[in-house]
């Protein structure tokens, strides 16, 4: 039984310009212990998928259809109270994009984490504070710093605090949305190493959302590639990097520099990401695809399981 099972998820936004089909029929599974990298260009629907799972969508968004099973419970149908008390933090937590502003500036960081713990566990305030200190040690921060305010931390340290916060109630699954994008390369490496260690130590499952393939290569054993609101290819990371089958994936991987390989120039994928209000007919990638055929502009491709665990959505696979 997968830990997380997303089936045919559709999340649309109503905006002034029309309906944005941000997540259009997305299906994913995550087994316990997996780290799934969800990759794609900006605006392809990665964050919306995460927010849908977390039930944190803005008011103009609507989940039209689909199911999101976490530990066999459909998160989209349970009531607010259960979601808040049983699911949030205890089963599922999130590390947000741009952690710079994710911490409330007027409260001490330790207090913010403790507030989350006390909402879900029936322990004393002192015991909760002890847990906060342990968490700080776990993520590599001096526990005494829990009394400080967010503005006293650097970017990398704030990210560690956010990670500590996400771990505080021992969740089964953590969704990390661009956790290291805003950090410089050296800090990036440190944080990614931390996340790898924590995964091993605590047996965490993770969804890592990013547009940076190198981050995925570093931390995830499985990868899903998203384009224009749809998953175009899903497989183990090794497969994606070594044997990509979808033209879009191939384009991404081709531009992935290799330190040990030969020098080659960039071959950018021509064109630009489509408008999600009126996406192209048929396969959404067809206007930019070097292998586009007649059927590509008419019919949406089905998802085919090429080999065990390797799913591709492309007419070429027939």
């Amino acid at each position, binding site marked *: 039984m997968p830990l997380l099972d997303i089936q045919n998820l559709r999340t649309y936004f109503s905006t002034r310009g029309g309906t944005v089909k941000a997540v259009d029929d997305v299906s994913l599974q995550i087994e316990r212990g997996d780290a799934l990298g969800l990759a794609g260009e900006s605006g392809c629907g990665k964050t919306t998928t995460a927010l849908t799972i*977390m039930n*944190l969508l803005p*008011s103009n968004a609507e989940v039209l259809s689909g199911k999101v099973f976490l530990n066999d419970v459909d998160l989209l149908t349970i009531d607010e109270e259960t979601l*808040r*008390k049983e699911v*949030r*933090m205890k089963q599922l*937590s*999130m590390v*947000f994009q*741009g952690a710079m*502003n*994710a*911490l*409330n*500036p*007027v*409260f001490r960081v330790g207090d*913010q984490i403790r*507030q*989350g713990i006390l*909402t*879900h566990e029936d322990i004393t305030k002192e015991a909760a504070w002890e847990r906060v200190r342990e968490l700080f040690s776990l993520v590599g921060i001096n526990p005494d710093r829990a009394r400080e305010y967010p503005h006293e931390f650097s970017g990398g340290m704030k990210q560690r605090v*956010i990670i500590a*916060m996400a771990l505080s109630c021992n969740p089964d699954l953590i969704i990390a949305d661009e956790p290291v994008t805003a950090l410089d390369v050296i800090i990036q490496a440190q944080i990614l190493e931390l996340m790898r260690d924590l995964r091993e130590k605590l047996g965490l499952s993770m969804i890592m959302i990013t547009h940076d393939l190198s981050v995925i290569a570093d931390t995830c054993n499985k990868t899903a590639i998203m384009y224009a609101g749809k998953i175009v290819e899903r497989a183990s990371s090794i497969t994606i990097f070594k044997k990509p089958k979808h033209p879009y994936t191939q384009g991404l991987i081709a531009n992935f520099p290799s330190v040990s390989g030969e020098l080659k120039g960039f071959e950018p994928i021509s064109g630009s990401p489509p408008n999600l209000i009126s996406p192209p007919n048929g396969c959404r990638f067809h206007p930019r695809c070097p292998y586009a055929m007649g059927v590509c502009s008419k019919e949406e491709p089905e998802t085919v399981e090429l080999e065990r665990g390797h799913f591709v959505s492309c007419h070429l696979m027939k």
Partner: protein
Amino acid sequence: MGMGRVVAKRGVYAIMLIFIMTIINFFLFRIMPGDPVAMMVSPSITAEVRQILLTKFGLDKPMHIQFIKYIQQLLQGNFGLSFTYQRPVINLVLERVPNTVLLLLSSYVITVILSIILGLIAAWRRGGKLDISFTIFGLWMHSMPIFWLGGLLLLFFSVRLGLFPVIGVSTPWLKHENIFSYMADVAHHLFIPMMTLGIGNIGGMFLITRNSLLDIFSEDYIMTAKALGLSNRTILFHNVLRNAMLPLSTIILMRLGFIIGGAVTTETVFTWPGVGLLIYNAVMQEDYPLLQGAFLIITISAVLANFLAEVIYGYLDPRVRYE
């Protein structure tokens, strides 16, 4: 500590402003068309008396000498003599100040509390029925003449229903055994004028409060709070309110100056013996010394209130101290 610097800096600025106000006040009343002597005393005097007064008040001397004399008088506490009341202006104003302060402060408390509550609910349920109704209510209060609202309330509750007194701050002929019955009497008189100003001034403050709160709601750390599993009530009253304290304090302190204007018309409607009513009478009687003195005192009070607001704000926002 930075506070000393803040007080000194704002204090100097306030003193400069007061000085400028005094200059403006002086020239305003001298430059205006009309007979300067008639302005100082009753307009109906004979030519000989006029000449005597001209010399007596030094109005035949050059302008800068008159100005110096004016400043000297002010520093001695002489704000002129009202010819309708035949008493020093400063005494008249100081007598009335407590009444105006009572009315303004009590109504302002109501305005602030209502604006925050309504603003909080409206921002939280943005776009919902409550938000729309509150916003329309706020816009409506912002558009209605406060004195008219006062008149209507007076007509309905005091005249027709007889629930409240119609004039003044206390019942003149009532003998009070103790301070409490006096306070109750004043409170009885205060209620409708206070509600008039209190509700009438909601408009602007509610809208600004709502906007500030909307800004806070769209911050990332509120989404973090939701992801933490905190209940809506906790987020609203624990987190958001703490974050809103700084902008709300700014709003509250800075808007204090705007409500002074409403006091004049409201005091007139309710015959509330405050500084506003004094100004109204001064205008009606063309008592220019009274008008000039009262106006100067009001502007100085506004500068002082502003100064106080800036100092308090400097205390609340640590960033200001280290500018």
